[in-house]
């Protein structure tokens, strides 16, 4: 699988502060990668370097083989910033039309209509941005990022202002994009969201990747819980493969078994373990 985003040994210093300390990260074709970490871990800096807003101090970042920040790299990506604003006097349709011109997209009215439908804003095409809720603006931001059919989508907290229905809309959209081969780097604090949609997850702490892998790889066995007539007992260190034997042993010992449950850590457990409870 070719990498659409390839980052290696990436460093960024702001004066004496090292925001990134040699980060390696890859996003393959059609892959959805989640970026997790506490505030100040360097997630937004990493994304900003990838889109060319921030210059790296050292290391390499490439988008579809082109140096991050170069015109060729920018032509391949769509980006939604964590803190963004569109001019309040533009309508949703005008925002997309402006970005079509800047992205060199020839999609015209059809592309704009399709994108607004994708983010459930088809009825708000003529509504001005300053008349939209924060959630609507965020969905418009996602639509803007998709102008010109980018190969790589970088979304920095795309659902922070969305209600549950809006989040679901974006989640379904991301899954649909993956089916169409679009690669996505998703920076979010919503662990459940990341767990649901991402193929791989990278956890950043103080500018370093401290854990990476698929959500299932990051989830470790935490034992087997057995409920018998003696009560609930947790057999630590046991896994899914041990469950039948544990039930058989209990029955052989004359116990009545009411239930058995294989315990695995959630992404949240893994995250909390990785960041050590750090919040900023």
């Amino acid at each position, binding site marked *: 699988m070719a990498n659409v985003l390839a980052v290696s040994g990436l460093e960024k210093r702001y004066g004496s502060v090292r925001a990134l300390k040699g980060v390696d990260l890859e996003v393959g074709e059609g892959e959805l990668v989640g970026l997790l970490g506490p505030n100040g871990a360097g997630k937004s800096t990493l994304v900003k370097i990838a*889109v060319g807003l921030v210059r790296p101090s050292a290391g390499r970042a490439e988008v579809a083989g082109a140096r991050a920040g170069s*015109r060729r790299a*920018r032509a391949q990506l769509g980006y939604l*910033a964590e803190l963004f*604003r569109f001019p309040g006097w533009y309508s949703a349709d005008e925002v997309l039309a402006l970005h079509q011109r800047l992205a060199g997209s020839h999609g015209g009215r059809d592309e704009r209509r399709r994108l607004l439908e994708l983010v459930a804003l088809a009825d708000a095409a003529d509504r001005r941005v300053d008349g939209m809720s924060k959630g609507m603006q965020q969905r418009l931001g996602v639509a803007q990022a998709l102008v010109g059919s980018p190969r790589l989508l970088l979304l920095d907290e795309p659902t922070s202002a969305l209600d549950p229905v809006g989040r679901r809309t974006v989640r379904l959209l991301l899954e649909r994009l993956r089916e169409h081969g679009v690669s996505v780097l998703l920076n979010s604090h919503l662990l459940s969201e990341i767990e649901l949609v991402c193929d791989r997850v990278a956890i950043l702490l103080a500018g370093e990747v401290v854990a990476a892998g698929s959500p299932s790889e990051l989830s470790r066995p935490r034992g087997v819980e057995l409920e018998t007539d003696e009560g609930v007992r947790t057999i630590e260190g046991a896994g899914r493969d041990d469950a039948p034997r544990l039930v058989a042993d209990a029955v052989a010992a004359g116990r009545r078994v009411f239930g058995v449950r294989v315990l695995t850590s959630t992404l949240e457990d893994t995250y909390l373990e990785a960041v050590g409870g750090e919040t900023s």
Partner: protein
Amino acid sequence: MRSVAAIAAYGFREALRRKVFAVVVLLTAIFLVLFWLANHYVFRELSGIQPPADVNVDTRTFAGAFLIGLAMFATLFLGVVLAVFLTLGVVSGDAERGLLQPLVVRPVGRGTLLLSRFLGAAAVAVVYVLAVYGAALAITGTAGDWTPPSRVAPGLELAGGVVIVIALSLLGSVALSSTANGIAVFMLFGAGLVAGLLGTIGHALNSHTIKHASTIAAWALPFEALYQDGLRLISRDQTGITGFLLQLGPFGGAYVHGWQIRVWAAAYLVLALVLALLAFRRRDL
């Protein structure tokens, strides 16, 4: 070109929305009405003014050149107000508000974005300056039946001065917040005007030090030198006591003038734009 037009139109709509044009049009209307009143009364009273018989002053030329000089000052000031408010937050201001980032990551690039904003602001400011200057000439021509010997070049030099201020404002917007940039550009503008007046005083007093300081300021701030050169051109044919009196006044004109300062002003403009582009390219957003 499609991108350049789109970004220039974006800046234009932003200015419309922020009522920049409304403020400038209102101020301009007030100025032109006052200027018409001044012309009306000055030229009406002109026939009653009797200079001493041995003083050969062309009162109509003196009044006309003085009033056009005043109009040029007001046009420069209003043009600078427009220029500064069109450009003071193009980089830092828009970045702080989150408006810039979605545009910068597009393939169009930072250089095109900045140049487009410059071209958009310069086009608006040049049209504005020429229109107000032209209106002032028409008012003085109608009310006083006087037109300066050179009409086109002073207008172009005024417009050129405002374009240089736009470039400086864009350069400032890369490093400074909107408020700080606005203050800095207006202070530069004020410093230039003071230096120009000092030059006039220096020549009247024949003070080498003041003349030298004024000359340095004219080269350091060529927008002021262009304005002064424009003033010089509107009264360039005046000799004798009329020319002497005009030279003594605040609108007497430049002592640093000619093609050298014009070429330097063009080079200065290019230099300011190149510095702004280089600084913008290196700026983390």
